[in-house]
């Protein structure tokens, strides 16, 4: 039986090899890297964007990309330090369920024999899936989950590239400090946050960071997400007249706030909208015109021609027809860091990859994200993860802070509809 089957198996392999030879692509047994993403369920659209980005990453790594030579593994085909073997992505659907995430992590480790895992999008699922990787001694690189406790567990095999709550709060405070030096008052800060996990946790960390720097939050207005009316909250702001307002809202609320502020003619001098709802394309399309000068955070800036982010975004756009968003880019960055470590390990041994991850020291020009770099502390958190601030101009966000990576000049005060 076995002998009879071999020629059959060999035929497609030969075809593949022929194609690979023609393109100068990687050769040898593929090295498998697993990724756990929500391909079904409520977060399926994010998971499928990530899937497209990771498939793009595999294609770029497996074929020489002279245009992206600044990034690790791009100039060559496959893993040059491991005999040029190609990369193979094994995607698994975690279905938004913590138990399924564990099953799939176990399957990828024991059945598919992946050498490293990435994912798993929602913080709770990253938590359970990485516990399986930890027990089996397989490196787990996360690029997107922000729950602080993930890197507080004392794990030896868990690494995270994304900035987390404290990093976000820190950039807001540094930015406001600079605005103050620039001559604008920023003493009176108001936070308006939706009252579930996202809004509450970000508001808390901003408050703690501010207080740690001797700045007090004058006013905090929590509200129920998906409100039908927010005029009471806007009136409250209008009366208090804060110097800075920070919104932490999902899309529908973000749009509603922009419209209500327009209706009541209220414009704070500095308006910050924290990522989520304000980064959503539907916010920009439907309320962008009345929120000019809004400041938002992002760590992915594809607006500078010639940058890695610009090129990757262009490739992603031809593939999917969509712009790459911040979350997708962070997921892709985590995956690329894992692949770079595998190559530097020069082996598919888990311990060698773990050691390579610990020795990771990537520079800004080697990344697609606008981080200061990638370097892990003893807990596995990227100490060079950083956030950019962008400002809404027309229907585009342009990068305005920090100054060294900015592509446009910061414009204050907030213009709104003018």
């Amino acid at each position, binding site marked *: 039986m076995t002998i009879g089957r071999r020629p059959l198996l060999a035929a497609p392999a030969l075809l593949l090899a022929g194609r690979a030879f023609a393109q100068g692509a990687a050769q040898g047994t593929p090295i498998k890297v697993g990724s756990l993403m929500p*391909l*079904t369920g409520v977060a*399926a659209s994010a998971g499928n964007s990530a899937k497209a980005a990771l498939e793009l990453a595999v294609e770029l790594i497996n074929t020489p990309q002279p245009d992206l030579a600044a990034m690790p593994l791009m100039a060559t085909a496959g893993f040059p330090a491991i005999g040029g073997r190609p990369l193979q992505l*094994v*995607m*698994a*659907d975690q*279905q*938004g*369920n*913590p*138990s*399924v995430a*564990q*099953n*799939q992590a*176990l*399957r990828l480790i*024991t*059945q598919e024999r992946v050498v490293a895992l990435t994912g798993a999008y929602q*913080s*709770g699922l990253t*938590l*359970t899936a990485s*516990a399986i990787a*930890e*027990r*089996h001694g397989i490196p787990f690189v996360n690029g997107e989950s922000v*729950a602080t*406790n993930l890197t507080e*567990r*004392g*794990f030896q095999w868990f690494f995270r590239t994304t900035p987390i709550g404290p990093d976000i709060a820190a950039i807001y405070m540094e930015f406001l400090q600079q605005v103050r030096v620039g001559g604008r008052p920023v003493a009176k800060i108001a936070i308006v946050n939706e*009252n*579930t*996990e996202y809004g*509450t*946790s970000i508001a808390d960390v901003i408050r703690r960071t501010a207080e740690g720097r001797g700045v007090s939050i004058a006013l905090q207005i929590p509200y129920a997400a998906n409100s039908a009316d927010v005029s009471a909250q806007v009136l409250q702001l209008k009366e208090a007249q804060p110097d800075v307002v920070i919104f932490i809202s999902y899309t529908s609320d973000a749009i509603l706030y922009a419209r209500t502020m327009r209706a009541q003619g209220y414009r704070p001098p500095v308006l910050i909208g924290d990522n989520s709802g304000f980064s959503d394309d539907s916010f920009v399309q439907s309320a962008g015109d009345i929120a000019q000068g809004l400041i938002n955070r992002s760590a992915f800036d594809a607006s500078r021609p010639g940058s890695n982010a610009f090129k990757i975004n262009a490739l992603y756009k031809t593939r999917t027809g969509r712009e790459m968003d911040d979350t997708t880019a962070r997921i892709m960055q985590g995956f690329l860091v894992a692949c770079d470590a595998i190559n530097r390990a020069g082996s598919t041994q888990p311990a060698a990859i773990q050691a390579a991850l610990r020795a990771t020291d990537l520079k800004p020009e080697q990344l697609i994200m606008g981080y200061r770099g990638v370097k892990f502390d003893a807990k596995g958190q990227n100490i060079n993860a950083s956030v950019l601030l962008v400002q809404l101009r027309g229907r585009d966000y342009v990068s305005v802070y920090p100054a060294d990576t900015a592509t446009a000049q910061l414009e204050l005060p907030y213009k709104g509809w003018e």
Partner: protein
Amino acid sequence: MSASITAPARSAGRLVFAAFVLLALLVWPLLVENVFYQRVGALVMLAALSASAWNLVGGYAGQISIGHVLFFGCGAYASLLGFTWFEWPPIMGAPFGIALSLLLAVLVGLPTLRLKGHYFSMATIALAELARIIVVNSPSLGGGVGISGPAIPRSMADLSFISPLPYYYIFGAVLAVLLLFTWWMGRARMGFYLRAIRGQERAARSLGVPAQRYKLYALLVSAGFTSLAGSLYAAMVGFVDPDSGLGILLSVKMVIVSALGGAGTLFGPLVGAAILVPLEEFTNAAFGGDGTGITYVVYGAIIMLISRYAPGGLAEILARLKAWGARHAR
């Protein structure tokens, strides 16, 4: 043919068959070295455990609860809150989860068991959803983020194993206790009462069956075991959030697993779990990259086929096949 076999011989044959099945259940995970299959086995036991617990109320007593996740969630949250607040091994929270579940079962059961048919089902859905919303809005219960167990096992008591085998045997042992109870109950007065209630509650009442009380007894036992299943789940997975511990899909899964195998039969839930859980895992593994969501298509098809053609599940189909065989043997 079958008519010529004497009754003792038939029951001896059944005993041999049962012994064989039991032996197979005990031994197969040791023969399979693949850890993923072993874990699927453990999940089959867990699904069979919660579905068998549901079966007491939904199958035997015919009161279709679609809010059983309420008790599952009590167990899961009690385990992990015990760890979060007092650093207990997760399983130490199980008795508290069970106690809370029993209390809730009384509170829920007294008013809702008076309701009939789909009113009872709707009331249970509402209560479970209420519990989920309360947890989402309570930061002390982990809110929407959820709570986790010990990241790194501290001792054996944490029930945190690398191999899925211990889970398989622990879940299996609890399931065996529950099935023994169910078997005993089926032959005792309680079983007859419950079947009478399921058949025609008004008639049962008029014959003097204390329907309200026995339905509540069934709900209490069911809630206790469902809660224990929740605690064991939490010990294995080490994390629970409102969706995975109190989401309505879990309640629905208990119903589907029981209905597929045969609601109101002793081994129906185990058979249902042994079919559905591997199906779910293997379709996900096979289509993980591309044809995702096929699991839900299969679920939907099973619900439609069972409710249209065999409301009694596989047990009914088996009985029909036997009857057909007997007719044609003559």
